[in-house]
């Protein structure tokens, strides 16, 4: 057993080198991307350059038990600075007063919409039209999950682009104008995601974002650094290669006909937002179509993140299962013969480092700690490994802070920088490891459910 230790050690070391190497490469790509974006940003702010190009957009808000948030969200959507848009809220069989509060506030009247069931959804009970603001329609349907709700919204959308917004997202006045710019500049764009930041602790008014601030909750601070990493170099790095595998459900815009053509959102996965993007890559690659799935580095959407461990664990397990399902449902994209970066780089990277990665990382920590305790690994090697693991983590987080400082510097006060740096340091002692363990648990749940499903199917086959 012990003779295999060096092999395992080398494998784990190679894994760490590979993972951090890719992250550093993404970082370098992001540096160039951010610099270019910032150079052109001042000019893009001039209203007349893009005016007239902005396409009409249907904003779809799936809402399940959102009685506390929905009015705020609608207030913010009505204040968006955009030439032509309509808002479709889909009440996905809420058990609370989501529909009632909207009925009261926007004086909703039943509307005999000649509903076109282009994408199959759970039955629609009624469609309402606001008598206060013509732009608002509400679909009331049976519960079928977020993907199913968005599909119902797509079915009654009147415009060629739809923008999906979560009911608890906080936007800025120019969020929609900013997210359509890539589609104006490049006609091959089929979907575009917005950069999402953490809303906890920030100031907002009438549902619109006003000023960024830091929460005092360490768990929230850890997530702020995580979001900076994920969006500033995660997405920014993959963007030039057209290899994004996810657009956050919190805020993203999609070409309606393309989404309808691939069958809309799937309702049998918890990660329907990622699954759709991976499927778009797969199916558009199959069809040999020229397309781009891109994203806007500008922070344009603010989302509340979990502020306690229980909720955070639930969210992370859901995300990991969503990731695994998205990859498994679209494994045809792996090394796709169209030769796209999505199939040859992003998919294998996510599969190896995010699907299997948590197992390797956990194994690495166990072997190093156990090896040290049992005397197989010297104290020098043990400390070096720890410095490397933690040091790379801090380096990647610090470089995300650098990208933020080079670009949007939303956290205005000088002490914000100090707090974020301290957070980048501290999150490597426990928080990241905890996340890794949750991801292992998620994969275990996924595999367990798959086995149960297979057994149930087999039993049914035997019976029949």
């Amino acid at each position, binding site marked *: 057993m012990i003779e295999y230790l*060096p092999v395992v050690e*080398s494998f784990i*070391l190679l894994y760490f080198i590979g993972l951090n190497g890719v992250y550093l490469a993404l970082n370098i790509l992001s540096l160039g991307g951010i610099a*270019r974006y910032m*150079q*052109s940003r*001042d*000019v*893009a*702010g*001039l*209203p*007349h*350059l893009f005016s*007239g*190009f902005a396409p009409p957009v249907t904003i779809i808000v799936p809402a399940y038990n959102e009685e506390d948030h929905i009015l705020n969200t609608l207030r913010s959507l009505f204040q968006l600075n955009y030439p032509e848009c309509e808002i479709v809220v889909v009440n996905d069989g809420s058990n609370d007063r989501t529909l009632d509060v909207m009925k009261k506030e926007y004086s909703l*009247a039943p*509307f*005999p*919409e*000649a509903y*076109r069931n282009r994408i199959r959804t759970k039955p629609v009970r009624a469609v309402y*039209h606001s*008598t206060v603001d*013509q732009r608002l329609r509400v679909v009331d349907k049976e519960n079928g999950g977020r993907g199913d709700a968005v599909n119902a919204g797509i079915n009654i959308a009147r415009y060629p682009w739809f923008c999906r917004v979560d009911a608890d997202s906080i936007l800025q006045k120019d969020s929609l104008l900013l997210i359509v710019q890539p589609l*104006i*500049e490049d*006609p091959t764009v089929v979907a575009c995601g917005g950069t999402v930041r953490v809303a906890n602790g920030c100031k907002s008014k009438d549902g619109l974002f006003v000023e960024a601030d830091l929460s005092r909750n360490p768990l929230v601070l850890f997530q702020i650094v995580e979001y900076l990493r994920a969006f500033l170099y995660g997405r920014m790095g993959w963007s030039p290669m057209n290899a994004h595998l996810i657009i956050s459900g919190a805020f993203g815009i999609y070409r309606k006909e393309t989404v309808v053509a691939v069958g809309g959102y799937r309702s049998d996965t918890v990660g329907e937002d990622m699954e759709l993007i991976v499927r778009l890559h797969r199916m558009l690659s199959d069809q040999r179509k020229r397309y781009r799935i891109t994203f806007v580095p500008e922070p344009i959407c603010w989302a509340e993140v979990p502020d306690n461990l229980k909720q955070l664990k639930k969210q992370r397990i859901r995300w990991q299962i969503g990731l695994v399902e998205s990859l498994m449902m679209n494994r045809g994209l792996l090394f796709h013969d169209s030769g796209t970066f999505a199939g040859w780089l992003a998919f294998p990277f996510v599969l190896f480092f995010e699907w299997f990665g948590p197992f390797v990382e956990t194994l690495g920590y166990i072997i190093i700690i156990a090896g040290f305790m049992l005397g197989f690994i010297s104290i*020098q*090697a043990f400390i*070096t*490994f720890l*410095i*490397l693991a933690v*040091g*790379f983590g*801090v*380096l990647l987080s*610090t*470089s995300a*802070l*650098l990208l933020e*400082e*080079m670009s949007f*510097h939303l956290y205005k006060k*000088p002490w914000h*920088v100090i707090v974020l*740096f301290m957070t980048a340091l501290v999150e490597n002692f426990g928080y990241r490891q905890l996340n890794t363990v949750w991801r292992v648990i998620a994969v275990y749940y996924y595999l367990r459910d798959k086995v149960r499903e297979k057994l149930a199917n087999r039993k049914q086959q035997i019976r029949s």
Partner: protein
Amino acid sequence: MHSDLILTIAHWVSIAVVALVLFLMTYILFLRALLLMKERRYRDFSMLWSPILLNGKGNKQDRPPRINYADRFSFLILWNTLREGKDGDVKIRDWMNSVAIETGIDRVAIRLLKKRSIRKKLLAVVTLGQLRDKSQWEILYQMALSDHALLSLAAAQALARIDREAAVPIIVPLIVRRMDWPAAKVASILGGIGPDLVAKPLADAIMEAPAEEMQRLIPYLETCHDAIALPVVHRILNDPPHDKVIGPCLYVIGKFRDKNDLKLVRQYLTHPRWHVRAHAAACLGRIGTKEDEAKLAALLADPEWWVRYRAAQAIVDLSFSSLERIRQLKEYRHDRYARDILEQVIVEKRLIRQ
């Protein structure tokens, strides 16, 4: 030996990582200090210049302050942002243009024309258009021919602003060729040039264009006079036309509300292509007579949703169709789709009136 080597490498890498982290942190703090300085500078700059640019019309005799070299780009941005909002105010517009010349931002714009960044070029193009600066005509013309949709369109707009008459022979052939120019923006350029100058060349270009392009170009006739637009449409429809161009022709007829074309429009209500039927229904909603009600009612049972929707809208739009009459029509229909679509459109119209 082997594991010792790995350990030594790992040891040095970890030292390098720690050093890099410390360097990055120092650099971040340096950037923050720089940012605070820049922000203070732009705030002071904007506070000084915004009132001068917006309220300076009475102080023509006063010379505007000098602009530091480092502030020229910021000034260009500020000038364009304020200039866009004041296009209708001739006094301020002239004042701002004179300030631009005096402060030399026209020269800054000319320099930006040669930059690689598309957005810097765009800023320059828009500025020169606003200043009606003819000195860069040839470069703007070359940019109008560029593959980049946004840049070529901005250059075309600048040319139209600088010299409407000279721009027409450049812009009209470009409109024919450029599939990537948004229709609304093209219509706005044509509207800016004016129907007197643009109508004839546009009509000629449409008549010479192949069917695929004709389909896209015909709706621009809306920006011309009916005396020029309608004969073009009639000539196309009498040719016999390609299926794809009939819809746009019906759109133009509907826009000019020419009742002489009623017979022509009615014949397309039964066209095999559903786009044509939908356009014909919409057109009848504008120019139809009482006898068209039954024809439109027949379209309520069309297999295509858009045709049913346009027919229902047309019925509701016809001035003689009272709500009672439409309800009656609805009750007579045995087809559920027809009843549904009529009900939807009735409620839509009622909501709009509210």
